[in-house]
C-alpha cells in the first residue's frame, strides 16, 4: 500500500475552452497515491436490504472514490475566509438526501446554515435518521425513525460544521456527511474530481478542500484564490502531502 496519499487540487485551465460565468471558482481534486481497498457493505446482513440487491452487485464503502485520472470525488470545497464585509446571500432551495438501497445518497453534500435539508426514505423498509453533530458545534443531535413511504423530514442547522454526520442505526453502515457553512460558496467534487463554486463576488479568498477520510478532523488543505472583478477565471491549486 502506498503510504502517501496526496490531495492535489490542480488548476484546470478551462478558461480557454469554456466560458466561465462571473466569479466561478473551478478546480479539480486529484488523489495522489494508491488508496486502501474499499470493502463490501454488509448489506445482506439485513435480509430486507439484501433483497433490494438480488442479482446485483453489493455496493462497497466509498471512502476514496477515485477515477482513472486520479480525480477524487466527495471532497467538500468552500470559501474559508475573505467574505468579511461582503453581503451573504440567503440560502436558496432545499438540499435533499435520500435513503435508497440501504445507503444514504449523496454520501457527501454541502449545506448553508439556515438552509432547508430534506431527508427522505425511498426504500420499502424502515430507517432511522440519527444526526450526530460534534459536541462543540452547537447543532442539535436527533434520532428519528422513518417508515417506508413516510414523508421526508426537514432539518435546518444554525451552526457551521464540517462534517455533520447522518447515520442510520438500523443499518450501521449507512452514513451521509454534510459540509455545513454559513454562506453559499461551497461545492462537492464530482466523480471526475472537478468542482465549481458559483457566483463568488470579486475578492481575495482562502479556499479549503476537505476530504472526509484524509481529513478526519474536518481541517483540510487551503489555498489563496483571487476572484477577478469582472468574471475572470479563478484558477487555483492545492496540494497536500500525506505523512
Amino acid at each position: 500500500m502506498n503510504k502517501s496519499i496526496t490531495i492535489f487540487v490542480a488548476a484546470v485551465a478551462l478558461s480557454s475552452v469554456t466560458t466561465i460565468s462571473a466569479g466561478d471558482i473551478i478546480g479539480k481534486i486529484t488523489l495522489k497515491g494508491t488508496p486502501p481497498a474499499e470493502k463490501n457493505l454488509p448489506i445482506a446482513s439485513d435480509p430486507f436490504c439484501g433483497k433490494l440487491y438480488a442479482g446485483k452487485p453489493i455496493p462497497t464503502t466509498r471512502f476514496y472514490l477515485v477515477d482513472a485520472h486520479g480525480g477524487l470525488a466527495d471532497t467538500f470545497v468552500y470559501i474559508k475566509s475573505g467574505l468579511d464585509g461582503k453581503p451573504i446571500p440567503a440560502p436558496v432551495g432545499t438540499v435533499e438526501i435520500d435513503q435508497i438501497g440501504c445507503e444514504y445518497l449523496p454520501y457527501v453534500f454541502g449545506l448553508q446554515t439556515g438552509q432547508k435539508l430534506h431527508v427522505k426514505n425511498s426504500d420499502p423498509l424502515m430507517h432511522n435518521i440519527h444526526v450526530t453533530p460534534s459536541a462543540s458545534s452547537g447543532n442539535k443531535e436527533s434520532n428519528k425513525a422513518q417508515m417506508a413511504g413516510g414523508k421526508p423530514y426537514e432539518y435546518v442547522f444554525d451552526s457551521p460544521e464540517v462534517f455533520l454526520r447522518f447515520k442510520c442505526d438500523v443499518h450501521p453502515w449507512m452514513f451521509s456527511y454534510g459540509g455545513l457553512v454559513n454562506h453559499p460558496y461551497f461545492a462537492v467534487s464530482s466523480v471526475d474530481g472537478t468542482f465549481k463554486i458559483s457566483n463568488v463576488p470579486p475578492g481575495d479568498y482562502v479556499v479549503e478542500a476537505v476530504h472526509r477520510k484524509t481529513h478526519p478532523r474536518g481541517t483540510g488543505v487551503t489555498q489563496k484564490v483571487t476572484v477577478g472583478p469582472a468574471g475572470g477565471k479563478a484558477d487555483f491549486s492545492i496540494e497536500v502531502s500525506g505523512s
Partner: protein
Amino acid sequence: MDFSDQNRWLHRFAVISAVATWILIGIGGLVTSHGVGMAVPDWPTTYGYNMFLFPPSKWVGGIFYEHSHRLFASFVGLLTTVLAIWLWIKEDRRWIRWLGVLAFFGVVAQGVLGGLRVTLMIDSLGIFHAALAQLFLVLLSIIALATSVWWKKWVMTAKTIPITDSMWTANAFVTFLIFGQLVLGAAMRHQHAGLAVPDFPFAYGKVWPATDPAFLEKINRERIDVMDPNPITAAHIQLHMAHRIGALAIVISAGWLAWRNLRAAGTSAVNSRFAIGLLGLILVQAAFGVFTVWSNKAADVATGHVMIGAICLVVSSLFCLISARCGSVAFTVRAPMDSENGSALSVLQSS
C-alpha cells in the same frame, strides 16, 4: 436452617435469574458490538409501539439486537422482582432479604439508565450501563450462592481451611483488578472508535505505539471499516494499551493467588479449586481478548470477551466472599475457647 424443597426452589430461581442476567449482558454486548445502540430511537416505546407488541416483522437489522435486548431485560426485571419478593417472604437471613431489595432497585436503575442512554443520546452513559450490569450480575450470583444448600452446610460445618486474612485481601485485590478491567473495556467499547490497536502482541508493530498527530492521521486515512467508526485518537490508543497492561496484571496476580492457595491448602481444598478455576477462566478470557484483536473486533468474538469477562468477575467475587467466610471460620475454629469468638461462631452458623 431450612433445607426444605421450597428453599431449594428459591435457590434454583436465583440461579436462573443470574444466568438470565448473564445472557442479557451478552445481548447487550451484541448491541454495542454491532454499533446499533441507537437503532430504536424511542424508549420505553419501540417505534411508537408498546414494546411487547412491536411486530416481529419489523425486527430487522440493528433493531433486532436492540429490541431483543429490551425484551430480555424486561424478562430479567420480572425475574428479579419475583426473586426479591420471594426472598422477602421465605428467606430467614435478613442480609439476603435486603440483597433482594437491592437487586430490585438495581434492575430498575439499570433499565432507566439504558433508556436514558437512548433518549438523551449520551454515548458515555453506556459505560455506566455496562459497569452496573456487571455489578448486578455479581449481586444475583451472591444471592444464588448464599441461598444454596452447599453454602449453608459449608458455613455450618465450619471447615478449617488454613487461609489467612492476607489471602482474603489478595483475593479482593484480584476482584478489584478484574472490575477495573471491565470498566476499561466498557470505556473502550463505548468510544465507538473500533479497534484502536489492530495488532497483537505488538502495537502497530512496536512495543509501545506512536500517538503523535502525524501518525494518527496516517492510520485514520488508511483504515477502511464499513462501520466508519470515529477517528482513532491518542486517548483511544492509550486506553487500549492500559487494557492490555491490565490483562497482564490480572494474569500474573491470578497466577500468584492460585499458587498461594495451593501452597497453603493443597489441591483438594475449596479455595484452591476456586483459585485454579479462576486462573483458568482468566487465561481463556485473555485468549478471547487476543482473538478480539486478531478478528478485527468481530462482533461475536468481542461479545464473547464481554461475557467471559463477566464470569471472571462473578467467580472472583464469589471466591472473595467464600474466602472471607473461610478466613473467619478458620479463625473461629482455631480459638473456640474464646468466649467472644464463640459467640461469633454461633452468629456465623445462623448465617
